[in-house]
């Protein structure tokens, strides 16, 4: 979706956005463009500045540096900030913030009343939105009579019914229990596919971000590490942080020396790697996913330069897979390898392993 309208003005454009509290930099020079209709996740560990970024977008926090533009018009800058009520956005809060003094229907109707819709169309919109989030039968309940999941749906309905220009969500699922969380991820994506609201979704849960997003922006220490579609983010992480944060991985240190990439006690031909991503001679760090390494008891049939002899150092059975720690070519390197439950090796066994250079992502520190 991000590539669909490359030339259009971004719905939201964050330009070197910063927010400094005293001497602490919560958000550091963050630049990011979001296309109309795009679903972007801000993903990162707790305290990395996701909420602060979202609240700057919403207008609750004024940036100390940089700007935010919506459809080309600056709405936040250190000089001033359009108040939240003028931004035509809506937001789903971690606490849901459903107003306990109003019924479900009144909660959902609130934004429409502010927009001075007439009674009839308010009723129609509220009812159809409640039906969409499967709460049609509960319109006259008070929030205290709803479960956590239902409150979550009220929050969604309330935020979406006004057809916001940008929909903001701050860890909306973190208060739900695990099963419901799983279900709601898909629900949120389903609603996005239905309405196509431009969405910024904050989460520290990579699973949520993967399921829901068109693109994921990974943040760390207030900075943007990488922004990419989920598949590419997983397969082509660009920084050590991203590789480690998204999924499990091995870090493999090597050196580029001419036509070879040299590791501890083994080396691989350089031409097997994705060429454009390897820089000139010098040290290089790769991320290798545990499932991208294959194991076999004997040497692999074809005569491949990427097969190495190795030894099992440790093993753990996880039910759906084995986790082996394997040391290739008697080096000090330890690789974590995921294998099918049927592939049983004992600690101390010698075996063969095969690397796939195409799946080895070189990282910037």
């Amino acid at each position: 979706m991000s590539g669909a309208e490359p030339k259009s003005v971004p719905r939201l454009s964050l330009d070197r956005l910063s927010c400094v509290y005293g001497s602490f930099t919560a958000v550091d020079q963050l630049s990011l463009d979001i296309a109309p209709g795009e679903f972007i996740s801000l993903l990162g560990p707790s305290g990395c500045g996701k909420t602060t970024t979202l609240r700057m977008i919403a207008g609750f926090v004024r940036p100390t540096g940089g700007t935010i533009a919506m459809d080309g018009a600056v709405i936040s800058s250190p000089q001033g900030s359009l108040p939240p009520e003028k931004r035509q956005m809506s937001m789903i809060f971690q606490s849901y913030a459903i107003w306990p003094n109003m019924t479900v229907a009144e909660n959902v109707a609130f934004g429409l009343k502010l927009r001075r819709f007439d009674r009839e169309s308010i009723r129609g919109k509220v009812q159809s939105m409640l039906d969409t989030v499967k709460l049609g039968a509960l319109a006259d309940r008070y929030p205290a009579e709803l479960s956590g999941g239902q409150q979550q749906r009220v929050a969604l309905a309330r935020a979406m019914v006004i057809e916001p220009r940008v929909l903001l969500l701050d860890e909306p699922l973190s208060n739900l229990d695990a099963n419901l969380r799983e279900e709601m991820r898909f629900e949120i994506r389903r609603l996005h596919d239905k309405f196509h609201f431009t969405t910024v979704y904050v989460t520290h849960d990579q699973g949520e971000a993967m399921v829901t997003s068109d693109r994921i922006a990974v943040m760390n220490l207030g900075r943007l590490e990488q922004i990419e579609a989920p598949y590419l983010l997983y397969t082509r992480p660009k920084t050590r942080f991203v590789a480690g944060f998204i999924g499990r991985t091995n870090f493999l240190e090597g050196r580029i020396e001419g036509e070879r990439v040299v590791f501890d006690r083994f080396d691989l031909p350089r031409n097997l790697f994705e060429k454009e991503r390897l820089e000139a001679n010098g040290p290089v760090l790769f991320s290798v996913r545990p499932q991208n390494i294959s194991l076999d008891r004997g040497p692999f049939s074809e005569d491949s330069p990427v097969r190495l002899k190795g030894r099992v150092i440790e093993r753990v059975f996880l039910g759906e897979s084995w986790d082996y720690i394997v040391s290739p070519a008697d080096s000090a390197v330890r690789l974590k390898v995921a294998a099918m439950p049927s592939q049983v090796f004992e600690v101390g066994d010698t075996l063969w392993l095969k690397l796939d250079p195409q799946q080895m992502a070189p990282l910037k520190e």
Partner: protein
Amino acid sequence: MSVAESPVQGATLHRGPLGRLRRFEPASLIWVLAAAALLFLVATPLVRLLISSLQATDTGTFTFDNYVSAYGRMRNLEALGNSLLYALEVTVLSALMAVPIAWGVSRTDMPAKSVVRALILGAFITPPYLGAIGWILLAGPNAGWLNRAWMAVTGSHSGFIDIYTFPVLSLVTALYAFPYIFVFTTDALDRVSSEMEEAANILGAGSVYTVFRITLPLVTPAILGGAIVVFLDTVALFGTPAIIALPARIRIMTLQLWQYFEFPVRAEVAAAYAIPLIAITLALFWIQRAVLGRRSYVALTGKGGSRTLTPLGPWRWAILGYSLFVVSLAVILPYAALAKAAFSKAWGLGFTLANLTFNNFYRLLAEEGARRTILHSFTYSAAAGCLAVALALLAAYVVNRKLMPGGAILSLLCMAPLVIPGIVLGIGFYAAFASPPVALYGTALILILGYSTRFLPIAYVNCAASLRALNPEMEEAVRILGGTRLRAIARVIVPVLKKSLLGTWLLVFIPATRELSTAIFLVGAQTRVISVMMLDLSENGSFEILAALGFFLLGATILIVLLGYKIIGRDFMLRRS
């Protein structure tokens, strides 16, 4: 939606001065107005008082003469000394009454706790001056019922207790002050985990030893906190001294202050004489904060821990007996005497049918003046409750949301009346607002403003606490959907907090209905209120009507408190805030 027709486009930020103006929310005007109102209500009287104290009466030139005449006279110094001694005695007596009962109620298996609590609440809502009148009927030198009973039983020719003496004055004052210490102490005792006591028991400490070495030391800061409140209240007390100390010719500072307003009025000297009262209050509050700051070790052990009640065996009857003794002195006996008076033609005559009458109540309702007085008290107090809650809520909101630079000053302004004794506030209001240019003397407004200011701290503390408990996301949800702050306050904050706001309103309304020390300087001929009328009735010796009026006030208060409990659904009165 194309970029050109984007509504946000029109609202784009402009840099420079224009942008600055655009950022000025219309609601800001309301914050500024609230701040101005607070400044007007709280700071003006104080500043005016200070200036007056340094001005010559006629010429208005700068002088220290007022301080010289205020403190250069022996009788004034004596009054200061008496006031401090009086407050000290009342504090000690209150602690002696409150602490054992608090321990009994909070940590033992004493029976009939709810009765004791209800009667202490009764003492709490009794205006001290009404209690004092009850005690005149009980302990008047010859005619008091206790003395008559004593003479009848012992055949003695004189009574055993004289209300018009210093110790009895202190005792009677303490009977209506001890609930403060009770509230502070039970609150702390409720937090001490039994494990603390059990830890001592397991090491071989006996129960008595544990109480004195473990439990009481843990709550000592709370007891001191309550004691300081009592001390301050007593130093500034006007009603009880006016009723008892004045006829007894005991010089008390507040009475002295009052007398400066009799002809010839010497408001400037009064101002000079009042300033140290503020200083004393400030100093004690500072001490209280220091003392209560160390409370943390109680809080640390509290909440989580379970609380098992200490079984007292037969001793539980002893502690119940003591509790009942204290509450009967505070509530049962005086109200019995007041009831007798309220239904009598003459309170001193016996229990005969000929003496029985409903006329006292009838006169209150029939007489235009009395009716209006009662109406004034309730309407002014209701209005003051609304004003105080509204101002406090706005101030607490501005402070909590950091909407104005220097917002902390607002909370300081709201809390400042706490260190202004009621009588000083009355004088300050009189000095600042009675005469032109404000010229509010004799209006209902000056009383309403006076009451609001006096009880502003109660309102502020409660509003701030409720706001802190409210998740700001509730309000942010309004704003992101397109509502302004004011709409968020009106549609979400106030409705969600309505119960606690109602509780706060009651906590202003109830004391305002009986407020005397501020009112006495501010009432005019057309704006009399119950408390002032009671004082007048007591000066005239019309105890029968006074008693009837007292019952009226008490009945109304009980009704309101019960209603409050029902609506709010929790104990909002006997609770520390």
